[in-house]
């Protein structure tokens, strides 16, 4: 790959080619839409939340390899977590992407591979898209709302 090894690692490409958690839910607990205003990545995210636990994550939409791979990795990392654990994990990922915190592989799983994206500031928003959508979804659910349309933070 020469020079772009950090960006297009095998594991990222793997998640891009075979997106885990891709699709929609029959009866989602909450659904949100987010987009990256800079480049046209769009995500529609649905969560199933039962007894305070995220039991299912489904994402759909159109976007670059980084945004799609990241959403795929996020779905694996967030599924099975309690709402509080999920929010903490998302915050950890966000801090890793902004270079504030080193990534914890045990917590992030495959998503640790996205640490390399931090070197490409323009692509950081791509990597964050799915995770910020998940945060938005959880906060919306906790706030009592069902669905929302919001900007990526």
């Amino acid at each position: 790959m020469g020079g772009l090894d950090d960006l297009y690692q095998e594991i990222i490409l793997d998640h891009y080619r075979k997106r885990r958690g891709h699709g929609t839910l029959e009866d989602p607990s909450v659904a949100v839409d987010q987009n990256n205003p800079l480049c046209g990545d769009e995500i529609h995210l649905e969560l199933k939340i039962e007894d305070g636990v995220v039991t299912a994550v489904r994402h759909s939409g159109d976007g670059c390899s980084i945004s799609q791979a990241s959403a795929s990795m996020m779905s694996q990392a967030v599924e099975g977590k309690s709402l509080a654990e999920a929010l903490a994990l998302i915050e950890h990922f966000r801090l890793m992407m902004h270079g504030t915190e080193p990534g914890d592989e045990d917590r992030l799983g495959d998503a640790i591979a996205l640490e390399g994206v931090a070197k490409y500031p323009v692509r950081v928003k791509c990597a964050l898209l799915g995770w910020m959508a998940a945060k938005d979804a959880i906060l919306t659910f906790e706030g009592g709302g069902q669905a929302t349309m919001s900007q990526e933070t």
Partner: protein
Amino acid sequence: MRDSPADTAARIDVAALRGDFPILSRRVHGVPLVYLDSAATSQKPVAVLDAMDAYYHETNANVHRGVYELAAEATERYEAGRHAVADLVGAPHACTILTKNASEAINLVAWAWGLRNLAAGDEVLITAMEHHSNIVPWQIVAGMTGAVVRFCPVTPEGELDLDAMRSLIGPRTRMVGVVHASNVLGTINPVEEVAALAHRAGALCLVDASQSVPHMPVDFASLGCDFMAFTGHKMLGPTGIGVLVGRPEILEAMDPFLGGGEMISNVTTEGSTWAELPWKFEAGTPPIAEAVGLGAAARYLAAIGMDAVRAHERAMAAYMLDALGEVPGIVIHGPRDPDRRGAAVSFSLPDIHPHDIAQLVDRDGVCVRAGHHCAKPLMRVLGVGATARASAYLYNTPDEIDHLVRALASARAALA
């Protein structure tokens, strides 16, 4: 504007011309730069850089007010910049207002003309292929006045639906805004016809000429429109300087946009009176060096001749459509006839997102743009969230397009 044997004599010598642009010989990631993003911003010839540098080295002083020699020279260079760009587009000097960029030029019209002249229920008609700079100011001012913004549709071939435009222009239409050359589709619109349609209905017409003035001969009077906006940094000039040309009687009747120093005649505690055109619309110390740079850019282009620039770009557009057309699975947006379009070519590939295209061809030194190109409504018409766009200018060559095509193949292989 078909090429004829006579045009060949006016062809530019690109190889020689590239020597005027030092940045074109730099390397990125260890390979030669292939700059195909002039629709985003153009590279600058040494003449422009030297002119700005000389201003600061030799005659820097504030303009219009100083009595001393330095100030007189600075004023002369600033106004000479205005005159040069006005002459390039055939506009009267007093009607050529210098702004920060095209967005500010359009906002000037929306606010200084729109707020006074749009009432509730009035209509502003723009097109689905507009850049956000010719959409958002109208939305803002419509929100404040109760006017309505309507959109003329674009055909699947990427051209204006003139039949639809005829039926959309009605007794409530007060302003018709249209882009001369689309930054996404490359389409060159028949703005003369649009202006005529607008006038027949008693409406004004504003043309966004940001992608036309740099690339083809543009004569304000011939277009027949009331306002024309364009920007310096897309026409070999620096950033921070744009142009609004307007018809004198309309500009005279308008209130100022920005208030402050320079644009006044007299200021008292009770109120103020305005300076004459064009200074009525130029508040505060202007971007003097930038105006000097813009003037140098205009003179550089005038020396080449806009017919020659257009001929080169038409040939580049034809080459790009041809070469890119061979790429398997590619979807090229916009007209396929090089006579109907400029050399900004947007395209989509089924197996690789524009963002990845741009990232991956960058390692081969190729600069293209990915995203919505500040034309989200148009993206929706095209049914995509984003496209990749390669745009050529007077300093680009067919070899560089070949390089892009090779880089696209590498990019696809990398993600396959």
